[in-house]
């Protein structure tokens, strides 16, 4: 499939992150889901948005006191279709959508704690 921009490995990771999560994500969540640095993700988000694959908006609800509002990104119908086609073409399979699980509180230095327990 022909795309209006260069499809890199990071672009595919970002597209997969949106397909997996199936919901609107803010920049930090996209970076986390794609396991890429935030600075690398923003140019890709901008390219996708410029191509009409992504739509973005500021969060509607009033954020917590003192917290700046976030900007959320979501795949447009055309973008979702194109993303599926690109990911299927380049990676051979589509990622399975994941159910959103609430994050459990984790102890700080979790790996260290696990290492101590294993020891």
């Amino acid at each position, binding site marked *: 499939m022909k795309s209006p921009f260069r499809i890199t490995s990071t672009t595919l990771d970002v597209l997969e992150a949106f397909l997996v999560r199936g919901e609107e994500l803010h920049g930090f969540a996209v970076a986390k889901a794609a396991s890429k640095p935030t*600075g690398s993700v923003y140019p890709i988000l*901008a390219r996708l948005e410029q191509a009409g694959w992504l739509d973005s908006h500021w969060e509607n609800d009033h954020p917590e006191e003192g917290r700046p509002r*976030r900007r959320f990104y979501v795949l447009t119908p055309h973008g979702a279709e194109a993303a599926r086609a690109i990911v299927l073409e380049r990676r051979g399979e589509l990622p399975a959508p994941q159910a959103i699980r609430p994050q459990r509180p984790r102890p700080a230095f979790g790996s260290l704690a696990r290492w101590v327990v294993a020891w």
Partner: protein
Amino acid sequence: MNEMLSQPLIGLALGLILAECTEIAPWLARRVLQIAARRLGSQEAVERYEEEWLGLLDERPGKLMKLFFAIWVALRATWTLRAIHQPHAAEEAIQAGDNRKSRTTRGRHLEITVPSGYTLVTGHSRWNIEELRTEPSRSHLLIILCVLTPILPVGVYALLIMEGLVSGGPLLDWVFVAAAVLGLAIFPTGMSMFRNRTVEVSLVSDDGRRLKLHHVSSPAAHSNREAFALMVGFAPKVQAAENPALSELTLKFDIVDDADVRTEWSSPFGQGTQELHHLPRPALGAGDRRASQRGLPLCWHASGQDDVRDDER
């Protein structure tokens, strides 16, 4: 000063410096993000990304992590976002009537002011692209200066060590290593400079008039190989007709007249003679005449894509 006294003092000083750097890191991170956002050009993009990035900054744990995050965003994201949002910046400047601004941009859409003494004539002119010349930006020169600054004392230090005039201690060795690592940064800086450089295009018309266009995006912007070739080359000057890579570049000039009459000029490099067409200038009001005396704005954008190669519209 004996060693018993100097060692704790150095440790104390380093500790104080480190603590101070850690304390100012969040403030510095905010400043870095604000500066990075303001370099995007378009006012809309500036406001949007400044708020968005500062929001993300608050979610980052740690003080130094905030600074690393900000620097990475500034280095990695700003260039691409500038290229995307620069067309809007040029349009905003035109809408605001800011004709005097001569923007240095590396995006697809640039703006200059026609030099004094040059007037656009109605009808038809023929122009040749005479020469391209690199023009390092001030920011690149500043980066190179910052990188080169520590190299000189390191070289002097290495020379003194080799000559046996001074004996190196562990601290000096670490300073030497740090400066050498910084010195190595000149290579990616050079690459960045030539990847993101702009060129000065010299045009000459059939009747002998010359026009220089500054800050035109370089064709090396998308080619590491060409950027490297230009970096290691001695003469930062290329003849348009002799460089096959330049034939792939298409410049499209939007000449914005006082009454917003636009004419576009696509100019494939490396093919010799170009043609410039534009519409007759409409009658000007008093305010427009003053604007005209300051010079007409010229806008263009550069692209290597075939879909903009439309010579006349």
